[in-house]
């Protein structure tokens, strides 16, 4: 049982990082007009 939970976390963590990659990409694409 614990093995399944661990594998679940193994799948969840990389997915969050893939999500972060897409989020970072969208931040870069949208932000060009906001010059500081």
């Amino acid at each position, binding site marked *: 049982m614990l093995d399944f939970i661990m594998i679940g976390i193994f799948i969840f963590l990389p997915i969050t*990082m893939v999500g972060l990659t897409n989020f970072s990409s969208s931040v870069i694409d949208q932000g060009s007009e906001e010059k500081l």
Partner: protein
Amino acid sequence: VITTILSIVITLLVMVLIAKPAGVYLAKAFDYNKTGVDKVFGPFEKILFKLGGIRVVNQTWKQYALALVLANAFMIVLVYFVFRLQGMLPLNPSGNPAMDPTLAFNTAVSFMTNTNLQHYSGESGLTYLSQMIGILFMMFAAPGTALAVAIAFVRALSGKEVGNFFVDLIRAIIRVLMPIAFVVGLIFVTLGVPQTLEPTITANTIEGTTQDIARGPVGAFLSIKELGNNGGGFFGVNSAHPFENPNAISNFIQILLMFLLPTALPFTYGKMVGNIKQGRVLFVSMLMIFVVFLSTALFTEFQGNPRLNELGISHEQGSMEGKEVRFGVGQSIFYALVTTASETGAVNTMHDTLTPIGGMLALSNMLLNTVFGGVGAGFINVIMYAMIAVFLSGLMVGRTPEFLGKKIEGREMKLIAITMLMHPLLIVGASAIALFTPLGTDGISNSGFHGISQVVYEYTSSAANNGSGFEGLGDATPFWNISTGIVMYIGRFFGLVTMLAVAGSLASKKLVPETVGTFRTDSSLFGVILVGTIFIVGALTFFPTLVLGPVAEYLTL
């Protein structure tokens, strides 16, 4: 004391002397144009590229980041199953059982994230197969990954394409980690470190009893443990064990190895962006912080423990509690500060028994995570702080901040801000949860302020991918295994992904011509501002935590 100080100064001088040539070598090793390094390693790499179906094709930053995340995820799962099945697999002469699921999870994540936090003891927790194809494999793959990302990051900063993750990873292993680790591994063996597949031996002592003496393939393990800023010990007591650190020379080599790649990378950066002074400023700034921390820690440890001093016990040798007698206070503290600055996590002394201020400085190295930092990941953090310094300076004088001729705008600062906030969030957030629940507090072995330090140290070490611990903490439970595992994972990959995005964003921008008003980032003034920025951000973020832990302990001792 004078001999100790002299030996430390000599070690630091050697470190400074080899940093630049090592940095220049790294720049050549990862250059996609033909260099002399290709002649030596090219043929081996071609075979590996063919076997892996790798083409030397540039990726976008996003493809690079995804390759990094997914390749690492695959390796973690693979090694998890090795740990879970080790009891049934070969090379298990001592008959060690399988790891339990949460411990296998923690260990797999720990070694793949370059942390090497160990909630097990190597002698009894792992088989030789697990040590070699699990631990040793990841000890090359993890620093190789971070080194690859750091190089890709600098490539993008210098206006070039990001490169290819798989090519860089293989180059990091074949051109940097393997040759050095092989040669130094042989040196360790000649110094008395065992390298054998024979099982634990039983010896008859002169007292007439028997003693089990663990051994194994330690030499190969030890060199990459230090060179790759891994830090996980073959034996439970790590480099305090005579088989893992036999004498003063092995101690000296280990310290040099820990700092070799982190101190070389600023010069690699300088070389790759075409201005070595850019790298030198970063190197000197980090060295200054390190020297201040080291001097303070040495001073406080040589003062001894005030409670014991009051009893009239001689403290000529300093605070010897938890120190390995063979190395004494000086070499123990030097090692402790190097291992936390370089995020290695190898130890030759018990960090839990450092004096409050000594422990606080070891902790601070990991909280800042920029005093050179671990191979690759630490350097990326340094550049992140450099960009923050440029941004703040720009705000103060009312100019658009520029870094290496590229404008830093809102989009980059947004990503830098969330990256900067993630580190304290992981540490303080996870510590708060642990201190709030019995699952966490049950592991604390000290009921005073030091108990808070134990918890904060554990999560700081995890988030900064260091791996050392205040070992008074009873951390071999499912709660600690899972919580530190998640902290290690996010602590590792979050910053790598977001900072790759920042570099990718800067790479796509046009160069802004330099004018008299441009704030130069290769000047000593910039070095001072950078150090100031690191301290201000670090103090604002972590001062309350330090007050509750080591500072309160110091004041009440």
